[in-house]
């Protein structure tokens, strides 16, 4: 079942098209990576899901219902541009946000106490935000986002501003929320965390979804039969053995021997390559070179932009 479905969303601002026929579906309990270069339209889509703005065309469905105002209480949103009331006390502020999300004062207090204890920040309750460091304020902000146990959590660059220890804390909390059944949309440029956390992704570029699917599907899509082969023997022999049948991308000496990156053209298989190599060289290891998300991101965006430029 899908927690969220955006169908054919189009949004334009005075002549500039922010989203063009964008569709995504986010399965319940998944972490969904919303990727894309700056200005691609991610924030516009997130704002539409949060009902901050409405789409010009298209529909958003939440848990099988057309999106309606009451749904904001089931969504938690941590925007990239975030802040708190500097002069307000931490406790008062958290209570305010929790009640805006529909919690009663009593519920809010109990849940806050729980979170404050877990983060070890009970002593901050009566402190003003302006007396906290940036990282501390970010923690408070994270709590206010997740306190009402939203079914859908939208996190826009959640790790920015955190030191590695606190980033790890947030990462673990995200996984805990996921295990408790929350669905998460994660918008980030940190491709490492995409690989680590996301089940599915959608890559938005120039207002359109140009790539989507599970992380594995996307990676498979970008596999191009390239292998890393560690061998011993003369490097020159490798080149001669390959001839024109295979594409030698690189061939460099390594600590343990020589390492070559070779791409197998369509119609041929790894066995064909190995058959050729085994004649003259001793093979130590063979690994497929699978592109990481960072490379996929760059490749997909560049290919799309180049195709549009033509």
């Amino acid at each position, binding site marked *: 079942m899908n927690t969220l479905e955006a169908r054919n969303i189009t*949004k334009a601002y005075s002549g500039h098209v922010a989203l063009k026929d964008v569709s995504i579906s986010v399965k319940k309990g998944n972490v969904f990576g919303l990727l894309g270069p700056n200005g691609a339209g991610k924030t516009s889509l997130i704002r539409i899901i949060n*009902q901050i703005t409405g789409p*010009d065309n298209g529909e958003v469905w939440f848990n099988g219902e057309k999106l309606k105002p009451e749904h904001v209480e089931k969504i938690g*949103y941590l*925007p990239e*541009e975030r*802040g708190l009331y500097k002069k307000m006390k931490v406790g008062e502020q958290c209570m305010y946000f929790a*009640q*805006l999300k529909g919690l009663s004062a009593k519920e809010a207090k109990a849940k806050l106490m729980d979170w404050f204890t877990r983060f070890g920040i009970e002593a901050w309750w009566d402190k003003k935000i302006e007396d906290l460091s940036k990282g501390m304020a970010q923690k408070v902000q994270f709590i206010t*986002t997740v306190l009402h146990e939203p079914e859908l959590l939208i996190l826009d660059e959640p790790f920015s501003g955190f030191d590695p220890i606190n980033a790890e804390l947030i990462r673990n909390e995200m996984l805990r929320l996921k295990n408790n059944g929350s669905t998460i949309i994660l918008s980030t440029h940190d491709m490492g965390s995409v690989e680590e956390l996301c089940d599915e992704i959608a890559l938005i570029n120039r207002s359109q979804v140009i790539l989507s699917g599970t992380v594995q599907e996307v990676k498979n899509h970008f596999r191009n039969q390239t292998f890393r082969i560690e061998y011993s023997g003369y490097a020159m022999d490798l080149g001669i053995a390959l001839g024109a049948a295979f594409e030698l991308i690189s061939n460099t000496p390594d600590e343990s021997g020589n390492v070559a990156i070779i791409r197998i053209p369509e119609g041929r298989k790894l066995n064909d390559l190995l058959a050729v190599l085994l004649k003259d060289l001793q093979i130590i290891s063979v690994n497929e070179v699978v592109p990481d998300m960072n490379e996929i991101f760059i490749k997909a965006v560049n290919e799309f932009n180049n195709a549009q430029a033509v």
Partner: protein
Amino acid sequence: MNKILLIIKREYLVRVKKKSFIIMTLLGPLLFAGLMIGAVFVALSDSTQHNVLIVDPAGYLIKQEVADYKASGLERPRFKDTEDLTYEFTTITPTEEEFKNSHHSLWVQLDSVSYGDGMCEFYVKKLPSLEVQNRIQEELEASLEQWRVKKFGMDWKTYQSVKQGVTLNTHNVEKPDSGEHLREMAGVGFGFSLIIYMFIFIYGVQVMRGVIEEKTNRIIEVIISSVKPFQLMMGKIIGIGLVGLTQFVLWVVFSGIAVVVIGMVMGTSAEVPGNLNGEMIANPGVGGSMSLIENSEPVSFLLNVPWMQLIFAFLFYFIGGFLLYASLFAAIGAAVDQDTDTQQFMPFVTIPLVFGFIVSEFLWQNPEGTTGTIFGILPLTSPVVMMVKTAMGWNSSNVWELIVSMLLLIGAFVGTVWVAGRIYRVGILMYGKKATYKELWKWVRYKG
């Protein structure tokens, strides 16, 4: 709890808990009362002792005012020595140096023509208060007048019956209750105008600052993912408006207390000059007791002021005017990124408001002018102007102005809130650039 109530509560509590609010609320009335009483006392009382030397070269006044009375054993009716003013006469003109070194503080020099045309030279070591100058001038006028009557061989009684001024006794047939005190009543209304003007400015700017703060803090996006921008804007406006009302009510209460306390400290009200009572009561911010009014002729017009109408109109225009202007201030806040950028849009708000204030002041001087009718109806000026008009009372022939003005204010408020709301919902999410008027118009027309 309803979200808009939550926002109102936050906006209200954050502000009333501020030290600056508490200090201003406590000190405001004291400052006001103190300033007013102080100013009146300074104006009325000049504690300096003045010794006036009147140089009368021909000796006419010396004979008439001093010698003759001395001879007859009567007390002289003019140039009486009082605590703060004593007179000495001489026929010998001193040099400036001699005057400087003398014990006289003021010197009035008559010459041969002064007896005829009344032109005298007035030398001072330090300029006395206007009140002291007036007293000296009046004494000299009366004295010279009597001398001239005698000189021309006229009978004093005949002269008095010839010299009669004209008094216009006002009877306003449209407003029979107002009697001749229309101007004073307008003055009371002007006091209320001043309060509305002040509160719209102070608290309207707070609304604008609040919006800018939420924008620059980047908190806005979090909030409007929970509430609609319109709810946030209205919550903010109403919350801050309530802070203003709270401060106003507390000021009235504390001012009352302050006046009573200051009155007690200064002694009984008999020692307070008559028009001071008037001043205190005429200013609604300071309050006053009705028993003082009844015994005090200069302030009896206060009984003619239609207080119920005035208080009702005050609440209506206070709230209506604030909502109208505050939504404009909110739209300005949403259209900019920082305080300094607001200057581009501020004239739209400040010019009508200041203009309304100027019209009110003008109306006070000319209570039934057409200007008042026009600007009392226009919504941007009516909250300030209508206070003066209401204080003078309404009747069947002109009450339509009040009704039209109120309806227009409601209509304008609804329209302005709608436009401001549309600018607001787009503006709060726009960072890093200053909006132009063209863009604002686009924002108003955005759908979705």
